[in-house]
């Protein structure tokens, strides 16, 4: 497979691993921001080959994990409205709200469809004119353009039975806020690959100005190991900068067309993040011109404040302040089959990754 095999080639990666072992000249504490990076790091066994003095913590970049329980409750309430058919990305199916998940709602008769693209949700609306199809928008800059394009298509086709419940979020602002936390003590960021394809590598310049090393990397072993080497070098020589080693996908300026489309459909709004609370202008709401496609306005759904489950440390884990094995629920009450916190639900969640790939290591 092109663009995959060459970056997994062990004859290329093994020398890089040797190089990584020699790259740490002073202690490096890095954060991988993106959930797919969390998974890729575990999947390739990279934690098992990290050199002494290098530490990686996971950041808030798993979209399902940062979806608040009050949003999940609203999603479930939405799914249980007669005549509503909700369409979701698969990860959302088992995410717990305060009282069960969409999987439980399905068992009670709610119509929940797993789709692979928001356009598939629009197709569902076309094929089921008697139902209102609500796409539950959960994600970052990676998925937002596709949702914007779908709303635009629905607008041009004048489709009445389709709308979106947007909890879309943006990465740079909240990440900057997180970095202000003195407890974190991070000196470099492994910057997301897919998000950066949209927003561009230039979006991380403000972090460099705060003294953080930044490398935008892909998800294959060669990408990851090389990214860690470059981060260690930047930290070691105290020369923070944005290095983009994923140019096959990411440019400095990002995808301007996608960004313009997002701006046409969405406007910034305050958004609640699980574990992090409400962050100003960290979310995206549908603009007034397209409000017919805004599920929250259409169904007058109210968000009811909820409490985090007792004992769950997802908030601290999402901020990189602790690791899953430190959580009293990890592996006992909270496991992928019976998740308590959101980090256990998504396959990209930090707890799920620890459970699945790293429990004993």
């Amino acid at each position, binding site marked *: 497979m092109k663009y995959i095999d060459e970056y997994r080639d062990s004859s290329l990666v093994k020398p890089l691993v040797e190089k990584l072992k020699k790259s740490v000249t002073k202690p490096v504490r890095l954060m991988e921001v993106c959930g*797919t990076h969390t998974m890729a790091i*575990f999947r390739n066994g990279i934690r*098992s080959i990290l050199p002494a003095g290098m530490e990686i913590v996971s950041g808030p970049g798993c979209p399902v994990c940062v979806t608040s329980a009050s949003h999940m409750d609203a999603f479930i309430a939405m799914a249980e409205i007669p005549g509503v058919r909700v369409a979701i990305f698969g990860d959302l199916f088992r995410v717990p709200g305060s009282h069960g998940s969409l999987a439980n709602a399905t068992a009670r008769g709610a119509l929940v469809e797993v*789709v692979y693209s928001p356009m598939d949700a629009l197709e569902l609306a076309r094929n089921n004119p008697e139902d209102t199809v609500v796409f539950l928008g959960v994600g970052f800059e990676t998925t937002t353009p596709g949702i914007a394009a779908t709303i635009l298509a629905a607008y041009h086709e004048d489709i009445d039975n389709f709308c979106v419940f947007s909890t879309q979020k943006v990465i740079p602002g909240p990440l900057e806020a997180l970095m202000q936390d003195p407890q974190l003590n991070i000196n470099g960021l492994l910057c997301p690959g897919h998000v950066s394809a949209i927003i561009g590598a230039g979006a991380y310049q403000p972090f460099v100005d705060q003294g953080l090393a930044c490398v935008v990397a892909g998800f294959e072993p060669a990408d990851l190991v090389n990214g860690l080497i470059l981060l260690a070098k930047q930290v070691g020589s105290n020369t923070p900068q944005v290095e983009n080693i994923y140019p096959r996908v990411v440019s400095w300026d990002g995808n301007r067309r996608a960004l313009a489309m997002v701006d046409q459909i969405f406007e910034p709004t305050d958004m609640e993040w699980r574990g992090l609370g409400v962050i100003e202008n960290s979310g995206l709401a549908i603009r007034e011109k397209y409000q017919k496609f805004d599920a929250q306005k259409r169904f007058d759904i109210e968000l009811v404040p909820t409490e985090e489950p007792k004992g769950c440390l997802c908030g601290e884990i999402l901020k990189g302040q602790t690791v899953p094995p430190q959580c009293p629920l990890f592996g006992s009450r909270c*496991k992928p089959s019976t998740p308590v916190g959101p980090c256990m639900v998504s396959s*990209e969640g930090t707890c799920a990754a620890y459970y699945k790939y790293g429990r004993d290591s």
Partner: protein
Amino acid sequence: MSDDTILLDHGSGGLASQELISGLFLKYLDSPVLKGLEDSAVIDNQPGKLVFTTDSYVVDPLFFPGGDIGKLAVHGTINDLAMRGGRPLCLSLALILEEGMPLKDLERIIISVAQAAKESGVPIVTGDTKVVPRGKADKVFINTSGIGVVDASLSLSSQNGTPGDAIILSGTMGDHGITIMTRRAGIALEGDLRSDTMPLHRLVDTILDRYPDSVRTFRDPTRGGVATTLNEIAAASSLTIVLQEEALPIRAEVRAACEILGLEPLYLANEGKCLAVVNGKDADNILELMKQQDEGKDAVIIGRLEKGKAGRVLINTPIGGSRVITPLHGEPLPRIC
């Protein structure tokens, strides 16, 4: 309309039932034992121990590239018998039909059952049909049970694993699971994705014939995939399994589909593959023998059993790292991005 679809009457036990049995089932299923239409089948005694299994099939869609629910129902039960070393003697076939199911779909399934049974050399000797009102089932559910015999001296079990044993996978993984998943979701991907459904009793028989004392167990990694089955073997044997990721056989099409959907082939269902746990010193010979058979032509040694934490499965990654492989939790779901 009544000529084209299943009616409640077809399950009444009356005339319509008889018409369905003689006009459709017996037309294709030609076992003399079945044709007697007795209340049960009488099977000739065979030397050895009996093996007995049952399985129900509820797959959606009913027809998919590489097979259909009928073929699956025959192969699946044959394979369950074969995994314990059983030589399958006969199968039962029980159908639960939904009122309104197109008769042509039922006919297509019965033709497929008949063909699979014939090619496998395992007759359907008894059967049953019920019809439930529309909406109370999803077109057709099938149950097959199977009886086989195994040599009295043979005792294959997942508990038999010994340190140093090799684990052979008889071919590529994930073909069935990814085919069903992409079809169900209506995802059109380029490339030839097809179910691997096939009977494995002949492959097993060939191996046991030559190496009866070297095989600890066979397991078919169906739902839950290779990862889940290996966890079961490691737990039953109280040993650790260490896999080599580079050895895992995955077709390029399957790998590409998994990359797109964020799925791991290790967790996808297989319907025509077995894992053989064999004595390490005979492993290469058994592998060669497997590769000479059609069912095992892509077989590889994927790992070994070792002393270590009981029930743990580790995989060595191509870059020199390692990670734990847990059993499947819940249905595999595609990822967000």
